[in-house]
């Protein structure tokens, strides 16, 4: 069967069971958009290519399947670079297809030419420039394989226009042949035994759980391990929901804005059982002073993570889905009553938890409206498996702190890259992936302004997401740093509460817009938002400008120097 390269591409995507593509057409990708009309694959027309990328990420986050985006060459390809970098940092599987100028024009500075494979080399797991239509099925197969296996990540296929038009003889490769790519899945049995021994002897162990547990779909395995041994768990920003917040063993989020107990548990720990986490500087604080008494077991599918920041005592390369059960098995063999052994540790943690809970004070008058109050009310009024998507800034930290995540893949955020503007398009993608679930974007006013136009996409495509803007009229996180570390010299952080008018803007994009100024209005507004399921809703919550995120480990300090709240800040 003879197909054009474009037809072969679409057919290959169908073979990979792609159900949706987020994209926006243009010159170099035009040939591919024609056979797309005859395909069963749904296409969602975004308003900016960055949105296509983040939507594909949101989709991948909640489904565990690769997100697919397709855009044209040059400016469209550069527009999607941010999303690629974001997905690369957070190990999100994406397959991005970019159009390219014709092969004979490559290198001539042709119209809308960009060196896409060159530009994206450092933000993709791998990329391919297709030079002949006959390569297409092989490249697509390889691309999906690379994106989804081992440590997942984004890949990119650059497809020149003449290759799309070229005829090829259709085939579908039986298997993938990448001699240089063989992820190690099974952990080394000796190392796993070593790890089990350390665990059986530890008195203050902590399970340091990262996003890798979600990527590996190993949350059940983790729960079994933790509950069998009674070991407390911290879930990093990328791992919220990997272990239920309501489980008594869950200590919540560690790191710069982690809660006291989670942060301090690691500082006092004698054994960190690190599962799919990578000792990010936002978790460790000053590395030299991080978890000074702890031995480290580090399990990761990416060998390069082991020893990158902290040298593990027991390194294990492997897939958590396989390694965690093996580890549990080895621990059981040792027949040590770990739970009994950990009683004093658990008791100590409980006293910290009681002494240093996360707090905020909503003034009974209703004003100023506290952002944490909004999040708590949103949570109380939402189904327990609601998907929460956030932007980057104070609102993100509050969302992570004050939501209760009890289901895997219900927290979608930009952790590693910290990409403002992530929330709206990622929420859209998440809702496409899980139309059965309620999707709330908790966004900042600054972030919202970066990618809000994707609400037009959401309305047009009937994707009823809900957006809560925690509108503090500022680039709040930056304002907080200027307040705390730059002598309250506020430089270029003021945005204004009502420019733009978020309600009008929402309405102009076909959404329902609601404005909330005081705590008394919160309930009614959320009830209204919850009742709307045929279009997106935006609530403009006018929140307290001066609220700061606490606890906080100031940059460069060790985690022992955690600042618990504003009172303590004033003392310093």
């Amino acid at each position, binding site marked *: 069967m003879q197909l054009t390269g474009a037809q072969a591409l679409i057919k290959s995507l169908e073979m990979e069971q792609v159900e949706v593509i987020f994209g926006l057409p243009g010159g170099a990708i035009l040939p591919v958009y024609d056979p797309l009309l005859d395909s069963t694959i749904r296409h969602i027309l975004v308003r900016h290519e960055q949105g296509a990328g983040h939507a594909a990420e949101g989709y991948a986050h909640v489904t565990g399947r690769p997100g697919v985006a397709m855009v044209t060459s040059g400016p469209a390809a550069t527009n999607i670079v941010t999303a690629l970098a974001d997905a690369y940092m957070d190990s999100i599987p994406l397959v991005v297809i970019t159009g390219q100028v014709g092969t004979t024009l490559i290198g001539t500075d042709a119209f809308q030419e960009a060196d896409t494979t060159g530009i994206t080399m450092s933000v993709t*797991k791998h990329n391919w420039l297709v030079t002949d239509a006959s390569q297409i099925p092989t490249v697509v197969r390889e691309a999906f394989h690379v994106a989804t296996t081992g440590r997942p990540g984004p890949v990119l296929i650059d497809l020149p226009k003449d290759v799309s038009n070229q005829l090829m003889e259709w085939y579908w490769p039986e298997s993938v042949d990448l001699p*240089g790519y063989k992820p190690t899945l099974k952990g080394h049995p000796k190392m796993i035994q070593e790890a089990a021994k350390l665990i059986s002897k530890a008195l203050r162990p902590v399970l340091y759980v990262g996003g890798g547990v979600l990527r590996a779909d190993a949350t059940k395995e983790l729960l079994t391990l933790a509950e069998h041994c009674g070991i407390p768990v911290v879930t990093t920003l990328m791992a919220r929901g990997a272990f239920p917040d309501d489980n008594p063993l869950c200590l919540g989020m560690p790191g710069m804005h982690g809660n006291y107990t989670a942060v301090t548990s690691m500082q006092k720990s004698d054994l960190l059982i690190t599962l799919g986490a990578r000792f990010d500087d936002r978790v460790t604080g000053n590395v030299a002073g991080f978890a000074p008494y702890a031995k480290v077991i580090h399990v990761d599918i990416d060998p390069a993570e082991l020893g990158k920041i902290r040298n593990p005592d027991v390194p294990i390369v492997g897939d958590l889905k396989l390694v965690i059960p093996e580890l549990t098995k080895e621990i059981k063999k040792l027949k040590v009553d770990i739970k009994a052994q950990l009683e004093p540790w658990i008791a100590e943690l409980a006293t910290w938890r009681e002494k240093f809970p996360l707090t905020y004070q909503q003034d009974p008058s209703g004003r100023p409206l506290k952002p944490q109050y909004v999040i708590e009310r949103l949570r109380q009024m939402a189904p327990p498996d609601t998907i929460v998507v956030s932007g980057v800034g104070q609102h993100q930290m509050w969302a992570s702190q004050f939501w209760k995540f009890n289901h895997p893949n219900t927290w979608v955020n930009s952790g590693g890259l910290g990409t403002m503007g992530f929330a709206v398009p990622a929420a859209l993608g998440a809702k496409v992936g899980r139309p059965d679930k309620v999707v709330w974007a908790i966004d900042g006013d600054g972030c919202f302004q970066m990618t809000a136009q994707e609400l037009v996409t959401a309305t047009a495509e009937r994707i009823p997401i809900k957006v809560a803007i925690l509108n503090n009229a500022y680039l709040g996180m930056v304002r907080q740093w200027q307040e705390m570390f730059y002598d309250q010299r506020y430089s270029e952080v003021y945005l204004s509460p009502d420019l733009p008018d978020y309600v009008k803007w929402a309405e102009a994009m076909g959404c329902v817009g609601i404005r909330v100024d005081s705590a008394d209005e919160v309930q009614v507004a959320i009830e209204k938002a919850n009742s709307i399921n045929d279009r997106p809703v935006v609530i403009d919550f006018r929140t307290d400008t001066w609220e700061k995120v606490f606890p906080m480990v100031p940059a460069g300090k060790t985690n022992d120097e955690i600042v618990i709240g504003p009172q303590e800040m004033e003392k310093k």
Partner: protein
Amino acid sequence: MTFSGSVVPMGGNGANGAAKHHVLSVLVENKSGVLARIAQLFSRRGYNIYSLSVAPTEDDRFSRVTIVVDVESAPLEQITKQLHKLINVLKISEINASQAVEYELLLGSISTSSESRSEIIELVRIFDGKIVDVGFDKLTVMLAGSPKTLDDFEALLAVYPIVEIQRTGRVALQKLDRSAPTRARSKSGKAS
């Protein structure tokens, strides 16, 4: 790889740096852009390449890249692990200088006077080099040898007016095993 060539620091004098350097022999798929991926990975992660040479192997599906890395820029282990993540990288061997044959090539053009001409020819002969080009008042000499030999040769040449010197950066292969294969190995002892 559509590219075959090498990079060496200008005026490179590797003699003093030997301890800080490690030699990696990297077998890669012979595909376009592979060299760019390697170079890009080094710069992106802040590793320094001291010298690099690349050419197709006996099997033209593969190329061998010999990279001399400045290990003060990052632990070698991290460099090899990151390199391994490149999809086109098949195999990385760290080559220990004492267990390797290492070779490098030097080409140098030197201005000559009537006296120095014969001295230079003599020097080239002592080092087992070659005169590969002769001009009216210049000679181009060639020497292949260990990087250390080339350093010595370069140092001795330095007293003459050097027009240009170009070194290739080293290529290396693991030394061959000299012990005869042991025949009667007990079958029961399982190798792990």
